[in-house]
């Protein structure tokens, strides 16, 4: 299969366990393991946000990440279309998308730097400034709100000792309000880095925060 550029065997199937229980899916474990080398180009940025390597001087992509970037390019009829997945990769590596990274992505893809700035600022998922190791996004839109999302948000702010949108002093947490996360039947939904926590009540918050304190962002 590998002679066809679109086919990239070796996705998480080599490493991931797929027979999951309900509890695992909704509970503590994410689906499968997430290899840093990515596998299928479609899987871009499905990895943990923040890997230990956050050296701002390093080239935009190296090694496995360069390979993933090249795989992404094979999926689109023009280079510019790879911009969103490329910025996703940048964020996965560095935790946020800095103006410098935007310019370097523009150079890689042959785009005008202003275009890339325009795109990066349009989408909410690109962090334009560094965030805590755990980015906590509490849905407060209507369905969650009806079921007490604001209390959950307040509990997160209390237990992480931060202000809304600010990063805690130990660099562990940034808590923000999120728009609907499409888990309305399981309120309140909280997204922490790439994972959803569903049916969260204020009582659960202390446990979640305690659990996260022992983890780096990459464990998420």
């Amino acid at each position: 299969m590998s002679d066809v550029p679109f086919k990239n065997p070796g996705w998480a199937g080599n490493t991931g366990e797929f027979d999951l229980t309900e509890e695992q899916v909704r509970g503590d474990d994410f689906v499968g393991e997430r290899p840093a080398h990515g596998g299928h180009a479609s899987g871009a940025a499905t990895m943990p946000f923040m890997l230990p390597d956050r050296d701002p001087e390093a080239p935009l992509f190296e090694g496995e990440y360069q390979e993933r970037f090249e795989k992404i390019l094979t999926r689109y009829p023009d280079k510019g279309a790879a911009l969103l997945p490329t910025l996703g990769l940048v964020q996965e590596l560095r935790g946020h998308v800095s103006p410098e990274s935007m310019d370097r992505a523009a150079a890689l893809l042959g785009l005008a730097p202003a275009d890339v700035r325009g795109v990066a600022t349009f989408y909410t998922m690109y962090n334009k400034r560094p965030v805590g190791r755990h980015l906590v996004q509490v849905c407060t839109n209507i369905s969650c709100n009806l079921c007490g999302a604001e209390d959950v948000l307040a509990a997160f702010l209390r237990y992480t000792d931060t202000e809304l949108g600010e990063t805690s002093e130990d660099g562990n947490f940034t808590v923000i309000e999120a728009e609907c996360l499409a888990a309305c039947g399981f309120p309140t939904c909280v997204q922490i880095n790439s994972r959803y926590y569903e049916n969260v009540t204020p009582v659960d918050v202390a446990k979640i925060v305690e659990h996260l304190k022992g983890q780096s962002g990459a464990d998420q």
Partner: protein
Amino acid sequence: MAYPYVSDREVRILSKYFGDPKQRHVDTYVERGGYKALEKALGMGPDDVVDVVKSSGLRGRGGAGFPTGVKWSFMPKEQRKPHYLLCNADESEPGTFKDRELMRWDPHQLIEGCLIGAHAIRAQHVYIYCRGEFFEANQVLARAVEDAYGKGYIGENIFDSGHTIDVTVHQGAGAYICGEETGMMNSLEGKRGEPRIKPPFPAAVGAFGKPSTINNVETLCAIPHIVANGGEWYRQYGTEKSPGTKLFCVSGHVNKPGNYELPLGFPLIELIEDVCGGMRDGNALKAVIPGGSSVPLINAEEARACSLDYEGCLEVGTMLGCASVIVMDETADIVKQVRRMVDFYAHESCGQCTPCREGTTWTAQILRRIENGKGTEDDLDTLMEMTQNMVGTTICVLSDSVAAPVQSSIEKFRDEYLALIRRGERMGVA
């Protein structure tokens, strides 16, 4: 390990394997009859596939309810340029949570639907534009695509039919407006997700400037079942004008919120009281939003008369939308919830059109003033007039979506607004 809640009133076709992680394996999917419909479809001409879907009467499940077969027939019959099929998996309408479940529990069903759709519109490449926040669904789907490539269901010469179809999962980056079809095409091209003026319509000039069709996840998931069993089979469910089954996403103040697959035309009140186990704490029903935040609210009396199909919802002055039923009991604070929805639209407006960019922000500010007990009765007239100017004056319908909850809530729950304005009293807590 039953899916969070199931009901014996359901007709589970698309959601049959919700809660069963084995279904994600390509081998299990094939054992259970998967990819048979693809083989059948590839043995038929593209126009014959379109005819089957037309005969089923399937209507788009993304909100507008446009007949899918008719949409497909707009695509050029001769292929001069590449065609693209886009699967709209950018589910972000508040209240909606069906597509995520369809993708994470049964990814191959969607892939099979995409492949059949691609064949019907003569496309060689399918992009599944999956919402960025859905890391899990993205991963499950990308893994399933990989497995299907490995088994030869995607790629070159599928089932020795000579057809080549590729599938790419494209992860979005967090923008509600990318769920609008032309916004999605811009986003896929690596641009800001700003909707485009129509015409030209996507079937003429779509993604990458080529003829394209955009279908919702749930629409495409229904396709394999329709192709396998025929259009008449699908018509046994639902009503004459709204055939088939639909996933209803119920959230809010009910005992058992969740996804329920029911035939269209199901009575709303039975959905709440029977299927969803009634209202939370036995409270009284106050209001329902039957189709996601972009449709008008209805009060309890209208809800009792409402049947859940495209026509039945229009009869009580609302819309089925994507069937996201948000239920509010007597403790709900309507003004606050409407303000929260408008805040959402103000956040998500792309800013291209003045009525939307300015209108969403000012509507939110006036509502906030009323909520804080500082509003005046004139504010209600201002809101009605202002939102009226936001209908039909913009490129896409995001700003129309603001008018629906604001106007309907002022008409039906004027008491709540007046209580805040005159006495600073809230008529709800949630």
